[in-house]
């Protein structure tokens, strides 16, 4: 018999609901799998065995009744504050808005998903717990900042996880780990008890092994139905510059092939001054996240995070005003683009996941730190507020690659339709055997 964590999120929820899978046995099996397999992955450094059993005992009959999930360290629970991947409790314990949505759906929080400290990195390598590793290659980064979410879902330690996304933090780990990662429309999920709740860029994120699983999680997070529709007949906007430029050739090929395979009408688009999106986002986002931070934490941070923090603190006020003007312009530009296209598409990350011990990527323009080109690809969604998703589209250099799609504000359903169409076109199946994992016992694999 297959392990219950080799079932996707929908399959687990269905099996618990129809009685073919006992929710207590599912939770026990999940906790056992985390104990057996998470050692080197480091995806779920805090496990809530007692609290999860208490949640299960009180779980209402919702769409996720009895289904275990993990939760990024930026969200509070009644028994643990939010630390954002640091040693400090940045928000006190309490029921965050996200926790309440999950509890009302009957879900069970099994642990804390590792994250890049303060959410200030796209690799997931800097954290009080150490790096989250990629289940496809343990020497590679899982991505960030929601690295633990991507890693755990890809390794079949958990079928769904809640992350967040301030500058690609759900989409990039999803691309690196070969799963689906959704950034919700800004403001569509309650912000209480969320360390990113102070930011006009940050939004909750949902991870699943396929788009349909992610839709279920997104419906719970946003507390609204996201009915499935036809994702085949869409107009797909392609912005060549800068999003299809300076890419790893295999990443570019996988993403281009996916768009072609989808059969969408491709609409060539230009967004005026979109090349400024990354700088505008970085200049506004970091000060928003850091404004309330006790800076005595700096000596405790990874040197790279400390340097990024110090750099952000030197942001002149006039640059933030410039960033706001660019942001306003790009919001008008993307709204105009959505008059001609249903979704926009480009690679989530320009290169495969970098090594943990050397977080650089090789691009046609040369070797670069992973963060700046990742932010270039990711931040338009955060700058404008629109939802975005990363969908796995195969491998580049033996590692996962992801295609990013954006849709207009509040159009998560359309985004998920497009992602499900890609899944169907490319043959994704969430209910398959897990990838080889460190410490894996052969008896826990199906077949």
């Amino acid at each position, binding site marked *: 018999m297959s392990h219950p964590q080799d079932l996707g999120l929908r399959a687990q929820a269905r099996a618990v609901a129809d009685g073919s899978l006992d929710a207590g046995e599912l939770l026990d099996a999940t906790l056992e799998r985390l104990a057996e397999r998470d050692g080197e992955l480091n995806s779920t450094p805090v496990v809530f065995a007692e609290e999860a059993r208490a949640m299960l005992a009180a779980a209402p009959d919702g769409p996720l009744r009895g289904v275990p999930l993990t939760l990024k360290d930026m969200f509070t629970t009644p028994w643990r504050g939010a630390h954002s991947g640091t040693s400090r409790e940045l928000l006190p314990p309490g029921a965050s808005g996200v926790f309440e949505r999950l509890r009302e759906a009957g879900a069970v929080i099994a642990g804390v998903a590792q994250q890049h400290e303060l959410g200030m990195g796209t690799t997931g390598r800097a954290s009080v717990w150490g790096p989250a590793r990629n289940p496809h290659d343990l020497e590679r980064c899982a991505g960030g900042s929601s690295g633990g979410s991507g890693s755990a879902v890809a390794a079949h330690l958990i079928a769904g996880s809640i992350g967040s996304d301030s500058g690609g933090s759900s989409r990039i780990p999803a691309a690196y780990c070969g799963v689906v990662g959704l950034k919700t429309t800004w403001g569509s999920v309650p912000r209480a008890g969320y360390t990113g709740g102070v930011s006009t860029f940050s939004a909750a994120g949902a991870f699943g092994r396929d788009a349909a699983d992610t839709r279920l999680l997104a419906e719970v997070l946003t507390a609204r139905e996201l009915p499935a529709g036809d994702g085949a007949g869409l107009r797909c906007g392609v912005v060549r510059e800068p999003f299809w430029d300076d890419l790893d050739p295999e990443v570019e090929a996988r993403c281009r092939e996916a768009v072609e395979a989808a059969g969408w009408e491709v609409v060539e688009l230009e967004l005026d001054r979109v090349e*400024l999106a990354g700088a505008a986002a970085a200049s506004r986002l970091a000060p928003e996240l850091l404004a309330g931070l006790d800076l005595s934490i700096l000596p405790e941070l990874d*040197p*790279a995070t400390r*340097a990024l923090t*110090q750099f952000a603190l*030197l942001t002149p006020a006039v640059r933030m005003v410039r960033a706001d003007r660019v942001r306003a312009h790009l*919001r008008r530009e993307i709204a105009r683009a959505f008059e001609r296209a249903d979704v926009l598409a480009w690679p989530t990350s320009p290169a495969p996941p970098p090594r943990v011990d050397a977080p650089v990527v090789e691009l046609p323009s040369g070797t670069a730190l992973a963060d700046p080109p990742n932010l270039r690809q990711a931040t338009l969604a955060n700058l404008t507020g629109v939802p975005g998703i990363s969908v796995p589209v195969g491998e580049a250099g033996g590692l996962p690659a992801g295609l990013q799609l954006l849709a207009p*504000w509040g159009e998560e359903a359309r985004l998920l339709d497009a992602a499900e169409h890609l899944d169907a076109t490319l043959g994704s199946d969430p209910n398959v055997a897990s990838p080889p994992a460190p410490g894996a016992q052969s008896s826990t694999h199906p077949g």
Partner: protein
Amino acid sequence: MDFDDFAAAVLPALGAPIGEGDLDLLRFVAAAFAPAIDALDAVDLRDLDPEPGLDPSRAP
């Protein structure tokens, strides 16, 4: 005043401690982001209107 002197003067004044070796890494980070930041600092804003009451949850 060069970048190092500026950072060494401003950061402690903001309550941000600077440790040994921090300036080297800070200079590296600043250089990595410099092309994009320089472009933002140089952009002509005259035709970029602000969006009063910008609400990222909805279209402008």
